[in-house]
């Protein structure tokens, strides 16, 4: 990023190179922010399970692109316009997009891997290319300036199958998620000192020095072994070396002071979530885990500790859950959903309105977590410089349909996208043949690849396609109407 005059002035004032990354930067950012400058763009992707109750999500007849109501009863988008709960309305930071398709060629449950890759899921197992967050953060180096290049968080499930993973490295290699907020905190903030306490600074410096010594030895050891190996084997160690570089970046202890927007948050209270894993007693704690993840993430973004994050949410499938939903969200909320045409990819039928409400309630819960993140980021001055991409692996969950998936962009996006709107993409199929599919000439999907290209361009990347499809034209172009 080109440095502005305010930034240069700031760096001169504090002695330039003395303030090394990343904590010099966060102070630098807070100064820049105070001067009314644009902060570096950040990108967060949030997955929520179980698709969407479209009847309580899609635009109503009276809605227009810029004038729309999301406060009516049962509307799942309510949290974005709920000043009573979140301090202010975030409706002007919302862009809800209808009609995006995930062409995963896989069961809806295996499709999350398509969200940030735009790729078919190979053999139901993995996408075939890198995910956008990793492309920007790693391939294009946009995450290299921060302490943590990118962050992958999850609730309840630390698996790496394509159905539970958003972030992928080169070639579609799944990246694991951190499901323990304490571990996430330690990764992001361990060793960070904001303030002027000399004893704290000295202790942090010694800790850094010892850790650096260990990393130096590991690096020496790996390089020595690497020299004895053939190239294919060397690649195994290259990734290890990259991982060590990442650890090394995290050793920075920072400078004195810190901007108003940056402070080290308290370490999450692990007693609030004694179990972490799905199907292993973790479900009752998913809400607390989600909140803790979001609070840590918001602070990390505000401190410019990372600029790229994914968060894989889970449901609240346990008896007496706070939503008052059946103890099996999947079997008793998502599966019974019986949609009208708006939620059924245009197919006819009245559906069953009684089945729309429970799913809408769960959807609203997921969006309430996004609103929580927006509220925190806003308070920390980082919302305007963030793009939050919220979606699911399915549209209609009863059909396991990967078409018409609910797509929400949130945040200020540094003005790259015009927010405060609702968009509706063209239908996939003509009204006369709503059952059309990928093998039909009439099938005209709007793929998520276009959205990924648009987001990449928001990061000033010259890119015109993203993803892997048999018809590569489906991966090309931007999403119209965003800018």
């Amino acid at each position, binding site marked *: 990023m080109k440095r502005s005059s305010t930034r240069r002035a700031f760096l001169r004032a504090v002695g330039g190179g003395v303030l090394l990354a990343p904590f010099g930067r966060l102070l630098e950012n807070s100064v820049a922010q105070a001067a009314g400058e644009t902060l570096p763009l950040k990108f967060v992707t949030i997955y929520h399970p179980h698709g969407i109750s479209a009847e309580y999500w899609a635009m109503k007849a009276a809605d227009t692109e810029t004038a729309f109501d999301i406060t009516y009863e049962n509307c799942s988008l309510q949290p974005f316009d709920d000043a009573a709960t979140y301090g202010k309305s975030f409706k002007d930071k919302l862009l809800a997009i209808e009609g995006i398709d995930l062409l995963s*060629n*896989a*069961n809806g449950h295996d499709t999350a891997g398509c969200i940030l890759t735009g790729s*078919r*899921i190979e*053999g*139901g197992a993995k996408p075939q290319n890198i995910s956008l967050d990793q492309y920007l953060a790693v391939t294009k180096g946009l995450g290299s300036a921060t302490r943590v*290049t990118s962050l*992958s968080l999850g609730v309840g499930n*630390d*698996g*790496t199958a394509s159905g539970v993973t958003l972030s992928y*490295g080169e070639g579609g290699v799944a*990246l*694991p*998620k*951190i499901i323990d907020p304490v*571990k996430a905190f330690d*990764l992001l903030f361990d060793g960070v000192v904001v303030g002027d306490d000399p004893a704290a600074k000295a202790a942090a410096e*010694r800790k850094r*020095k*010892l*850790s650096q*010594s*260990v990393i*130096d*030895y*590991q690096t*020496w*050891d*790996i390089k*020595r*072994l690497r020299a*004895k*190996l*053939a*190239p*294919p*084997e060397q690649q*195994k*160690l290259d*990734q*290890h070396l*990259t*991982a060590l570089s*990442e*650890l090394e970046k*995290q050793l920075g202890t920072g400078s004195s002071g810190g901007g108003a927007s940056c402070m080290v948050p308290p370490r999450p209270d692990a007693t609030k979530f004694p179990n*972490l894993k*799905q*199907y292993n007693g973790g479900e009752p704690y998913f809400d607390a885990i989600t909140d803790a993840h979001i609070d840590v993430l918001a602070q990390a973004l505000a401190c410019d500790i990372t600029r790229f994050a994914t968060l894989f949410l889970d449901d609240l499938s346990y008896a007496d859950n706070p939503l008052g939903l059946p103890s*099996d969200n*999947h*079997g*008793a909320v998502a*599966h019974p959903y019986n949609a009208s045409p708006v939620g059924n990819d245009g197919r006819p039928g009245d559906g069953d309105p009684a089945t729309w409400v429970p799913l809408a309630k769960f959807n609203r819960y997921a969006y309430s977590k996004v609103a929580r993140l927006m509220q925190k980021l806003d308070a920390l001055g980082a919302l305007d410089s963030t793009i939050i991409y919220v979606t699911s692996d399915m549209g209609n969950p009863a059909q*396991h349909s990967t078409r018409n998936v609910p797509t929400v962009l949130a945040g200020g996006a540094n003005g790259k996208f015009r927010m405060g709107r609702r968009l509706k993409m063209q239908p996939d199929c003509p009204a006369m043949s709503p059952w059309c*599919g*990928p*093998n039909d000439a009439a099938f005209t999907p709007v793929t998520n690849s276009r959205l990924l290209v648009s987001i990449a361009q928001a990061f000033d990347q010259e890119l015109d396609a993203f993803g892997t499809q048999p018809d590569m034209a489906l991966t090309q172009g931007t999403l119209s109407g965003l800018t």
Partner: protein
Amino acid sequence: MKLVNLANIGALVQIRVMRALPNALAVAAPLLGLAFACQPAADPHPGSGTGGSGAGGSAQNLAGSVSLPDGTQATALLPARIRRLSDAEYQASVSALLGDSAAVADVSKDFVPDSRQSGFTLNEAQRVDPVLAGQLAAAATQLAAEVRKDVAQRAPCDNPATDADKCATAFITSFGFQAYRRPLDADEVTQLMTVFHTALDGGSYDEGIELTARAMLQSAAFLYLTEIGKAPATTVELTPFEVVSAISYLIQGRPPSPDLLMQVKDMNADDARKTILGTDLFFGTYTRDRVVRIIREWLGTDQVTDLAKDTTKYADFEKIKADMAGETTNFLAELAQTHGSSLRELLAADWTVANGNLANIGYGMPDVTGDFQHISTPNRLGILNQGAFLSVFAHAQETAPVLRGVALMRRVACVAVGDPVNLTTAVVPPAPDPSKTTRERFAAHSVGSCAACHDGIDNFGFAFEGFDAMGKTRTDDNGKPVDTSVTIAGTDFAGSYADSNALVKAMSVSPQVRECFARHMFRALAASSADAIRPSEDDFVTYWKTTLPQTAGTVDDVGIVDTLKAYINSPAFIYRRAQ
């Protein structure tokens, strides 16, 4: 540069062994002084530490390629390579080093799950990514704190003010020997002493030991098993340390003991192999646990604990899920101990080991009570008709003949099955229809282009329609009788079968299935399923066939453990080729 005299390692290992004894320190201290007089000794091959070259090591492999035994082709060798310890191997390794205190026993429980290849956790795809690197660093910090707590025993030093270096060198050499499964060379000791001094500077001797342990416990030397011999060449022989490490991890899932490492340090690879095979390697709980793990991973039944079913249809699943996993484990353990780990029995046993909960709720056997026990199951033969397999290869709401069929074809019979992605067709599962059985709905597969693959796949799967998506016996599906009769084609057990019991009985004596089993065991043990090593797999299968017991000129069964032995004993096992 001063070099540690490796000949003195023996004394150090004695110290480690005596550590557990009362007053061990009093004995150890003078030995340490003796062992680390640090006499200069020439290392004829600097930088050969990874492969490990003990004093007096065999000289024949130090330059160029080795001569392979007659009949062994270089193209059939596995490549010279490294592989990262799996999570389970890591845990076993730190436990072997540091004991079983709670802080040690739980240290890896939240590690990123292993990557899988063909279901197996031992594989060449394991990497250290940033998340795992962070977890390894945190674990090493936790473990090093344990070392420090016990520093008086693990790194004794009467007078750190004057002897810190000598004591630290002793610790690095002895702890490193066990952690790295070979002697450390001089460069490694020097580097680790730098780590020690970083902490000693402004800190204490104990802190220095702690930091040094922390470095060793996340080093490549600890985390990776090497199979590279002593020096790069077209064909190499593994070092004796590599041989016993490989065998120990493959058969017991844990590192070799320091005593064994000492015993083989001057041997060639073949003698090292014979030495470890001469121990009680194949007996006891470690080997049994390895057999259990390999078979569970092969057949995918280890996935059952991370599975959920639609509770509106399968409300009982959560009640017996853990017991299904327990059944597989206990069944395999009994199979290994009392049935010669017979493949035939694995696939067609008319018994299992279940507890009352599973037998009552899952298998409709109300008379069984109490803990896991041997019970007769004449209508549920072998592991493929057990709850775990039937639940894993099923959907959350209904059975999945395709998943069951493909699992049998690929994993048990080695019948090639195409991948729909390669056909660039949209996969649309048949829509739920409450008026039809699952089999009737899947009749859509028998027409058009689908039939080419699905006639084969579905017939394997339909045989199991007598069991629902959590393995309960059923006679009807959506109110209509289930049809489990199938016709299997294209295998050496082609024919018509009434149900899955009849099918698995035929499969249990099929040479094709036996060979398929051997191929999967090879992939589990060679830690690779890559196409590039198919010649190695073929070579192993050829050798394995020569080891099979015959009755009147025919083979009628194979042992699982015998197959593991055959892999270790195969001529190619101790050699590697350049990549």
